[in-house]
């Protein structure tokens, strides 16, 4: 660049030419550095026109201009919602074969197929996030304050093998008007015993897990009133959903006050029946997921004495 101080290049009359290149100066100057009016390359102009043509094609083909009610739609009819629906249906198609396999595999046979189990657990985890976390929490840890059971531990009110979990999911717990629902009731002992008797029973219950000294009076009351469901040793009865009182897990709390309250004004949890709300395959996946959380028990076929367990039929038709 050439320095040219004090020159006035604003009027055409004083236009100057850069000698070596023969190009006019634009007239801008920064500390003696001047700008030449070098023409742009022609292909650059074409590129610019191309971008304009591109934008016109884009506006015609795709949604572009926002108008008062809605935008222009474009002749291709593309929408982001439509694309999402298409992708979702593709994903559904991709899952179809897994769902089909799940639907004809009996629930207790799923753990035998590692690949199917992994897919069932993954699907169950997704369904759990939508349908179950509201009560059981996103980590399936439940809530002692609210009385929602923890699904990660090895303590099960109604059974922890994969079939029992599926049954609970299908029929729910304490669902009014549903014959097959899991049902039981803890009687309210408010007004039945006096304070000393209650304290004795609380002491005895806590002593079952070593949290209090044994109490003979409490043991007597327990044997008469409680042992029929909770078992003489306090280990509970899963067939009626009676909790194990001799372990370390307390659904409604382990302090004497909390135990006392549960005897006088028992709380009893409810769980929706998912049959009819979720399809059977999703329920199977949920059962597999809950079973996989770490406390799942092995399914044992209940058979008549001396008989071999019947082979589980895999229905290839459905």
């Amino acid at each position: 660049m050439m320095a040219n101080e004090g020159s006035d290049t604003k009027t055409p009359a004083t236009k100057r030419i850069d000698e070596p290149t023969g190009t006019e100066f634009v007239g801008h100057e920064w500390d003696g550095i001047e700008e030449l009016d070098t023409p742009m390359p022609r292909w650059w102009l074409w590129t610019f026109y191309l971008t304009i043509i591109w934008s016109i094609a884009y506006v015609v083909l795709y949604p572009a201009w926002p108008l008062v009610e809605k935008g222009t739609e474009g002749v291709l009819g593309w929408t982001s919602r439509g694309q999402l629906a298409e992708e979702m249906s593709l994903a559904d198609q991709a899952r179809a074969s897994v769902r089909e396999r799940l639907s004809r595999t009996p629930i207790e046979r799923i753990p035998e197929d590692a690949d199917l189990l992994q897919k069932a657990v993954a699907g169950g985890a997704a369904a759990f996030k939508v349908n179950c976390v509201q009560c059981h929490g996103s980590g399936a840890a439940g809530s002692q304050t609210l009385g929602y059971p923890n699904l990660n531990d090895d303590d099960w009110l109604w059974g922890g093998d994969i079939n029992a979990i599926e049954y609970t999911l299908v029929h729910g717990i304490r669902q009014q008007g549903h014959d097959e629902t899991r049902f039981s009731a803890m009687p309210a002992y408010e007004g039945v015993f006096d304070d000393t008797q209650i304290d004795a029973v609380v002491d005895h219950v806590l002593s079952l897990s070593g949290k209090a000294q044994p109490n003979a009076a409490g043991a007597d009351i327990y044997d008469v009133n409680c042992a029929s469901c909770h078992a003489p040793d306090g280990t509970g009865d899963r067939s009626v959903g009676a909790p194990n009182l001799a372990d370390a897990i307390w659904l409604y709390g382990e302090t004497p006050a909390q135990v006392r309250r549960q005897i006088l004004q028992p709380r009893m949890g409810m769980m929706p029946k998912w049959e009819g709300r979720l399809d059977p395959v999703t329920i199977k996946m949920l059962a597999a997921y809950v079973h996989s959380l770490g406390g799942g028990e092995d399914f044992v076929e209940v058979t008549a004495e001396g008989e071999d367990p019947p082979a589980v039929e895999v229905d290839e038709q459905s």
Partner: protein
Amino acid sequence: MNNPRGQPEDWSAFTKAKTTRADPLYESAKTVHNKRIDGPFRRFKWLVMLVTLGIYYGTPWIRWDRGEYAPDQAVLIDLANRRFYMFNIEIWPHEFYFVAGLLIMAGIGLFLVTSAVGRAWCGYACPQTVWTDLFQHVDRFVDGDRNARVRMEAAPWTFGKLSRRIFKYMIYLVIGFWTGGAWIMYFADAPTLTVDFWTGQAAMAAYITVAILTLTTVVLGGFMREQVCIYMCPWPRIQTAMMDEKSLLVTYKDWRGEPRGSVKKAQKSPDEFGDCIDCMQCVQVCPTGIDIREGPQIGCITCALCIDACDKVMADIGRPRGLIDYATLEDCEAEAAGQPARPAWKALMRPRTFAYTLIWGAIGLGLLFALGARSHADISVAADRNPPFMLMSDGSVRNSYTIKLRNMESQPRQMEVTLNGLSGGRMWTETISSDEAAPSQIFDVPADQTLSTRVYVMAPADTMAQDFMLELTTLDEQRETDSSATKFAAPGDK
């Protein structure tokens, strides 16, 4: 200030024309019809072209045996499996710093080359230069040398011209297609991909990539050519900032050449004229269409073809070679002042060049060291946060973790993971049942893969929250080890 664009041969006429008409806003590029030349630099350029194109087209076909669990292609960028293979080096995504290191080395390498020999990259090895050179040879092959091509461009569109042009553009397309076709071979097994490509079995991405690269090759190498270097490429601008009076560049020694005069004139009055006879050979052979006699300029890629051309002319008329030559501006001044010419290689001996070499070498050695010292087995642990711990019915406490065992060898390995620092701790997994819970477990990690598994760790009742380690040992002769610290959460705090 020098105009970087191609100039007509009659410079003064151009200048006059420009001063008498209004400047256009846009100017169409003038096609460069460079003349054939032979000489040491041209031969060197041929060699570089042969080597670089050979590397580009040939590399994907080199086989390299890695055993049954890894591909046998020597150089393979396996995007689907996120692996980069280069002979006996295999790079995983977490080792991308090797690629970053190589890119930094490439950058500093360019600085080093620029510091030592100026724009040698531009002149010889840049793909734009190599492919432009290739396309210019195609022009020469189809239409003849410079004069024939100039005539052809000005000729009316007869059948002959049309058929020649179609023939030429067909060759362009074939070169472009080959360029794109070779590119995709780096991303999949080359022989398989070739068969798949021609039988319509290859991925759509392969066809699209080939189509795009065919287009860009033909457009950039066949038509844009020197316009890319002058208008589009940032590197000449960066180099301009890196050059100084000690940088080696192709220089016209004006003190020796000026004033120009024909051989006849110089014979009449020997003292009046310099060595330049204004034969325009240097301009005619230039692949970017510049006149080197205007001094250093952005359009000069220092390919040195003008040196070949000028040396030939000087030999013909019996004057010493080197009127146009590799020299630094500093040397030119010294030479102009009458000092003897310094050999060009001495221009390499300067602190800046050594500094770049040192940095470049240090990074290279660092990378090599990191490559040699890297472990091929690795464990990482993430503790489940929700819930942080689980109280079991017998009062014991269970935590769960997601562990990742990385096997970077191309053969399956057994790895033993052991709990360290958690007394009474036992672990099991989703596949190892809780009946087999133990303080250590053995995992079969597939070849060249990361095994991700959920691990349950159980500690007896009344265990406090604490830190512990998960330690990995490979059960093979290497016995590589790694460990990862994590936390055991429990209701009781420390």
